[in-house]
């Protein structure tokens, strides 16, 4: 007598969890409050609190988490008996497409300052960015849209802009770009993802 049939029944996947779309990158002085939960998806709520939108990018924003690990091994077993995290880096990168002094400064370490002089008699109006290698820490928030159409926010309270910045001045091949590399320098437990899941009940 034959036994029960051998069933092949994999679980269903959820296509609506497959997400795409741009992220909106904001920066602010360290300690700047994020908007209330209700307004996490409202751009003006961010800028109203002092967050600055970096503007257009060449190819969107990339978040890179890169832990390195150390295997703990014993002679008696070929596979590790444990894995310890030795270092972990978190980077937010993009190529800024809007060439403003603010963006140039941010890409070049955020250590500079901009002095604004108005136009006057014999004096054209001007803004002068004075650079500095005294890089200033900055807070970062990346706002994307989740599968419900609500905001999903990655908040990194403290990062430092430190990466190679190479800008090509081309006649027509491409716009001038300012690669931005933001490296997290805060404890990992201060970094949060906030996902809005439902509107308030009243």
């Amino acid at each position, binding site marked *: 007598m034959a036994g029960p049939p051998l069933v092949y029944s994999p679980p269903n996947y959820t296509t609506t969890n497959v997400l795409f779309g741009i992220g909106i990158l904001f920066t602010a*002085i360290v*300690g700047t409050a994020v908007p*209330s939960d*209700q307004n996490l998806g409202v751009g003006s*709520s961010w800028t109203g609190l002092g967050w600055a939108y970096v503007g257009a990018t060449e190819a969107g924003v990339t978040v890179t988490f890169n832990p390195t690990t150390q295997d703990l091994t014993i002679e008696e077993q070929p596979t590790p008996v444990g894995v310890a995290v030795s270092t972990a880096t978190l980077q937010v990168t993009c190529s800024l497409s809007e060439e403003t002094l*603010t963006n140039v400064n941010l890409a070049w370490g955020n250590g500079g300052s901009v002095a604004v002089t108005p136009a006057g008699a014999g004096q054209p109006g001007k803004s002068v960015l*004075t650079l500095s290698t005294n890089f200033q820490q900055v807070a970062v928030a990346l706002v994307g849209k989740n599968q419900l159409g609500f905001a999903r926010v990655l908040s990194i309270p403290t990062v430092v802009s430190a990466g190679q910045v190479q800008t090509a001045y081309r006649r027509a091949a491409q716009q001038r770009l300012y690669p931005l590399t933001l490296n997290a320098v805060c404890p990992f437990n201060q970094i949060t993802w906030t996902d809005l899941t439902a509107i308030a009940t009243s």
Partner: protein
Amino acid sequence: MTEPGQPGYAGPEEAGATDTLAARMVGETQDDQADSAALGTSAEPAADEDLSARAARLESELASVRAQAAAGETIRLKVEAPHIAFVHNGLEVGEDYTEVPARAVQAMMEAASDSGVKLTQEET
């Protein structure tokens, strides 16, 4: 999605909103009302103010309070001629006295000095 004016910050008489900071802010007890007046908040809606307008107003007030709370102690600085503005680390100081977080003042003064810009701190 999350437009201002959506319900959620309506007020203390609506129990469903009491778990939000905004609701707590506007749900002052009598002891809190002096603070509320100092912050320019008003839990009592104007007679002709609908819920959406009231929610938007309270959101704005909440944002202001959040910004103040986050900034902590502030110092008032202004930039001297011939400049009309000075920007450092995302903070801008104009010709009129501008609130700057106290923790950021030293770096801003040093940066101004490096840039040949004179900043003046308001005497208290």
